[in-house]
């Protein structure tokens, strides 16, 4: 007998898109300055109809998708969310709702339970009303607390997610205590990743090394203390690393994102990349998109790599990192992710890190740009 667990590893042949992320809408009542939705989201008003989504769910399930995330924007803005969750559940998906909690009243949560929803990830911006409401540019802290109460009342698995950055990283201990108080099963302390709106605001959001070290030590102490009661995840900002992340676990490897207008993406920020537009589920079936489309094969595996990745012994460990980051920081998505200290462009990352160590001069600071329709419509920066 050999009762072991096989790690889910990429194979030489193309595996199924285990993770289907359905971004139902870019509409959102919050205005977080680190939102990962495209900066120009306001220019894309089209949304798939209910029947289109039902077809996408079926087609992805047929080729092996098993985790389904309903996200946005705020997915509760869609009136047909319950219909989509019910179909996903019937098809055998494990269903995840990624929400700010705004719009989650008792009627809707009861309907979602009935539809077979498995888990809710609830975002907070901080453990305090003041910072939460400042960062979301709304008065939503109490609404979120109420959402947390309903999630527990209806016996859902609850993941609390808090995006971490310079302005709340020193509250990590309070955030953990808050997660314990609302009885979360998992807590994700996810340092902002610097794309889209977070990239615009990078100077205001990037923590110092000292802040990061302290926050991680606090998290480790609590992880030990909490044991199996609550699982704690701490995701570091990759600018502080010397090797890039294996972004999305590989291009076209396990993740399939469908944007509100039906564009299929290997990751939710890939739309910023130059080249042919990505395929749309209105024009192509999910199987063909995943296995055959140019977009999904563009950076699959290692064949597309240039030096220093091409001959690097570690190229299978990180697959060259993130294509979007390479594009944003070097102008060429086929370059190594400059987080890697073997990249000739690593200096661009070091410069941001160096800047973050300085105490900012309040007068010279760029103002924080909150995500909003007006800001988006006038956006010049595409990432």
């Amino acid at each position, binding site marked *: *007998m050999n009762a072991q667990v096989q790690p*889910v590893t990429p194979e030489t042949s193309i595996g199924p898109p285990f993770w289907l992320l359905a971004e139902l809408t870019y509409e959102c009542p919050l205005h977080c300055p680190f939102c990962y939705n495209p900066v120009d989201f306001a220019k894309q008003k089209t949304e798939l109809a209910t029947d289109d989504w039902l077809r996408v769910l079926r087609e992805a399930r047929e080729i092996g998708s098993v*985790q389904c995330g309903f996200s946005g924007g705020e997915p509760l803005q869609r009136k047909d969310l319950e219909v989509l969750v019910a179909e996903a559940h019937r098809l055998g998906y494990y269903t995840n709702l990624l929400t700010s909690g705004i719009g989650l009243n008792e009627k809707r949560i009861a309907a979602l339970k009935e539809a077979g929803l*498995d*888990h809710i990830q609830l975002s907070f911006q901080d453990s305090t009303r003041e910072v939460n409401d400042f960062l979301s540019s709304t008065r939503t802290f109490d609404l979120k607390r109420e959402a947390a109460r309903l999630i527990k009342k209806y016996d859902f698995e609850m993941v609390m997610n808090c995006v971490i950055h310079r302005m709340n990283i020193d509250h990590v201990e309070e955030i953990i205590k808050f997660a314990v108080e609302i009885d979360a099963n998992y807590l994700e302390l996810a340092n902002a990743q610097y794309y889209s709106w977070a990239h615009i605001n990078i100077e205001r959001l990037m923590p110092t090394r000292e802040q990061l070290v302290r926050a991680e030590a606090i998290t480790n102490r609590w992880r030990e203390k909490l044991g*199996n009661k609550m699982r704690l995840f701490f995701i570091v900002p990759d600018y502080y690393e010397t090797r890039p992340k294996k972004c999305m676990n590989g291009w076209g490897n396990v993740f399939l994102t469908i944007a509100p207008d039906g564009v299929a993406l290997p990751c939710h920020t890939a739309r910023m990349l130059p080249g042919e537009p990505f395929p749309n589920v209105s024009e192509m079936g999910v199987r063909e998109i995943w296995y055959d489309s140019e977009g999904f094969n563009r950076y699959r595996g290692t064949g597309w790599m240039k030096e220093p990745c091409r001959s690097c012994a570690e190229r299978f460990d990180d697959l060259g990192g993130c294509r979007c980051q390479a594009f944003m920081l070097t102008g060429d998505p086929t370059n190594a992710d400059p987080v890697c200290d073997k990249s000739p462009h690593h200096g661009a990352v070091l410069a941001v890190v160096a800047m973050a160590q300085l105490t900012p001069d309040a007068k010279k600071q760029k103002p924080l740009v909150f995500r909003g329709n007006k800001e988006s419509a006038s956006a010049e920066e595409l990432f």
Partner: protein
Amino acid sequence: MNVVTAASNESEGFALDSIPRVGRGFRLQWEPVQKAHVLLYPEGMVKLNGTAGEILSRCDGVKPVAMIVAELEKLFDQTGLDAEVVAFLDLACAQRWVERT
């Protein structure tokens, strides 16, 4: 397999009369595309090999470990599998994949 570590999270490991079930928050299902049992949990998946799948699919909150062992011995045409099954359950318990009823 480090049984000592696995068991140390609980006051004691599984015994032959313990009744295991799939852990709260996890769902076990057969995936035809992967030809494997998988454990699903918030935003994650563990793909199980054949034997692990055979053990966990019998953790139904009714059968005691001894009965699971007997079924597996019959299935694999082997004897003396109790230690291995208990060791796997202890490991799985530390991961919260199974719990005692």
